[in-house]
Structures are given as structure tokens and as C-alpha cells.
């Protein structure tokens, strides 16, 4: 991690995440990463898996990041070989279910970075749900998908 401010912010986030507040009522994030936007591009995509560990359905209503001016949940669809990107207003996850964002499919579109995004920097993502406190998670900046 090259940015000391981000290191402190990361620690704070870890402490917050470890606190007692129910984050989006049993929403859990894993395997997150953010594709470093190539030079010349102001748009990035982040990928991760969201799990609903609870016994009731969850609705994720949006995503934001202090590292970007705007963020949206998106989905790439292929129609007759054509890629179409569409906004997902909400994502419902069944009890025990999951939502997977991956290259070429659902993704978090992040626009206009407010800072330089070096490889291995950690970026904060906040998921707002219909119920409960937001889920805050941190994902590393990577050049390509991590190997499973």
C-alpha cells in the first residue's frame, strides 16, 4: 500500500467492520478486487461476491465509494454479440444466496476516481441495503482477476 492515508483509513475500516453493528443484516463480501482503470479511462469496475448469511431476503439498493465521484451496480449483457451495459437499481439476495459480480457480467461501475489508484491500494466500497447499516468492505486494486 503506497498511500499512508489509505493505510490509516484501512485500519479504521477494519475496526469498524469488526464492530457489533449488523451490516446490511448478514450481508458478507468476499473475493473483491477492483480493475485498475487504464490510463485515459475514468471508469473502473469492481468485482466481488456478496453472500446473504441471514434467514431473510436482502435487498442491496446501491453502492458508493469515497474514492470515486459516482458508483453504480451494473450488468453487462450480450445480445447477438453486442455488449450492453445496464444499471441494476437493486439486487435481491435470497437467504443463503449470493450475488456474484465478475468480468463480463454484473459489476460495480466506478466513475471519476478522486485519487490515483496504484496496484495493491485498498479501495472502500459501501453497500446500502433496504434494511440495516451499510456494509463497508475494502478491495485491492489489481491489474487482472486474482487466481482462485
Amino acid at each position, binding site marked *: 500500500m503506497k498511500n499512508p492515508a489509505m493505510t490509516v483509513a484501512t485500519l479504521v475500516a477494519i475496526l469498524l467492520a469488526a464492530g457489533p453493528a449488523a451490516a446490511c443484516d448478514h450481508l458478507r463480501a468476499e473475493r473483491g478486487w477492483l480493475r485498475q482503470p487504464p490510463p485515459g479511462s475514468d471508469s473502473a469496475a469492481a468485482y466481488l461476491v456478496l453472500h446473504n448469511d441471514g434467514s431473510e431476503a436482502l435487498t442491496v439498493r446501491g453502492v458508493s465509494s469515497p474514492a470515486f465521484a459516482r458508483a453504480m451496480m451494473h450488468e453487462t449483457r450480450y445480445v447477438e454479440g453486442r455488449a450492453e451495459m445496464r444499471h441494476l437499481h437493486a439486487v435481491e439476495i435470497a437467504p443463503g444466496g449470493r450475488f456474484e459480480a465478475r468480468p463480463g457480467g454484473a459489476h460495480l*461501475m466506478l466513475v471519476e476516481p478522486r485519487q490515483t489508484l496504484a496496484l495493491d491500494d485498498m479501495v472502500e466500497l459501501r453497500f446500502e441495503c433496504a434494511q440495516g447499516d451499510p456494509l463497508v468492505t475494502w478491495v485491492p486494486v489489481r491489474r487482472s482477476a486474482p487466481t482462485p
Partner: protein
Amino acid sequence: MNDTKPASHLGIILLGAIVMATAFAAGMWLSSTRHAGEAGGIDGLLWPDPPQLAGFHLVDQHGRPLEAADLRGHWSLMFFGFTHCPDVCPTTLAALARAEDQLRKQPAYGESGRVVFVSVDPERDTPEVIAEYVNYFSPDFIGATASESELRALGRNLGVLFMKVEQADGGYSVDHSAGVFFVSPQLELLSVLTPPYTAADIVRRFTAVSQFLEKQG
């Protein structure tokens, strides 16, 4: 789910797009049925009468003219996209860079084969922007764009569709054909690999298509 709508100021010709898509799909179907047997195991699609790359006038990432004739004599893997595309374009260009590492070892592709990224968003993608962008993936990549009318002509030639759509946040995106277009050294569009695909899929398709072309003599 879907709050995007076509951007009116771009004047999208939907009817034309539908006709092109239909013709494209029909052509691909015909090609697959005509060549599936004789190609001996090619798992892809080949045009029955491959379209010849017509004369086009693009500008490359160095601000120099890029014309169809410049692609003669070597294989070109063409991909259409735009630099503000967060998901499909970087995913594909990264896959193309990985594939090209493998393809360099094949004599047919060799050192002269090129990946050609054509931006369908000339409003934002100047040659300078494209230069930085493609170089991130590979210094060997060619990046290019052109005026919208020139891009539409190239699109009609190759069966490439693109359509500007407004986003909920006030920005815009461009829906676009996301295939890899395999153009032979004789400037024939021999195959289109439709998404989703991996770097290994690109290598397999190139190998099959180039071997097929070799057998045809």
C-alpha cells in the same frame, strides 16, 4: 432494471441496426452450416463469402492515417470498444494481450500480427487518449478511431453495431459489438468470435481459422 434510453442527439438508425443484425446473424448461420463439415472440426463460424475489408480511413494512436491497406500482409484481430467502458473492454483487451503472447509463437501470426482496437467513441477518445489506453495493455497494439460517419461505414462493412445510450448518472455508455474480428492478411473477415470468451478461446479460434485458410491454399 433498465433506465437507459437511446441518446437522441446521436440519431441512431434503429431500423438499419436491425437489418444489419439480422443480415449478420443470417450470414453467420449460413457460414456455420456450410463450413462445419468441410472445416473438419472448426468449432467456430466462418463466412461463406468472406467480406473484404473495404477502404476505411481511421486515425491511429499517433495521429497518423490508418487505412485498410495498412493491415494487408499480416493477421489483424480487431476489437471495437471505448476507453470509458469499465468491464468488457479492459477484460477483452487483457485477454487479447495474453492471447497475443501465445500467438506470436505461431508462424501464421508471428511478429507481424496485430491487435487493432477501434474506439467507437470519438467524442471522448482522441488519439492521445487511445495511445495511453492501448499501451497499458500492450505496446504492440494498434489503437484507432475516426469520425462517426467513417465508423458507421466500417461498421456496415464488418457487421459491427454500436449505439450511444445515456446513463442514469448523466454520462453515457456505448453498446457495441464485442466480438473479436479475425481479418486475414488478404483483408478478408474470416471469423468473428462472439462473447464471452477467454484468451485460450481466442488462440483456439485463430489456430483453427489460420489452419483452415492454409488448407484452402
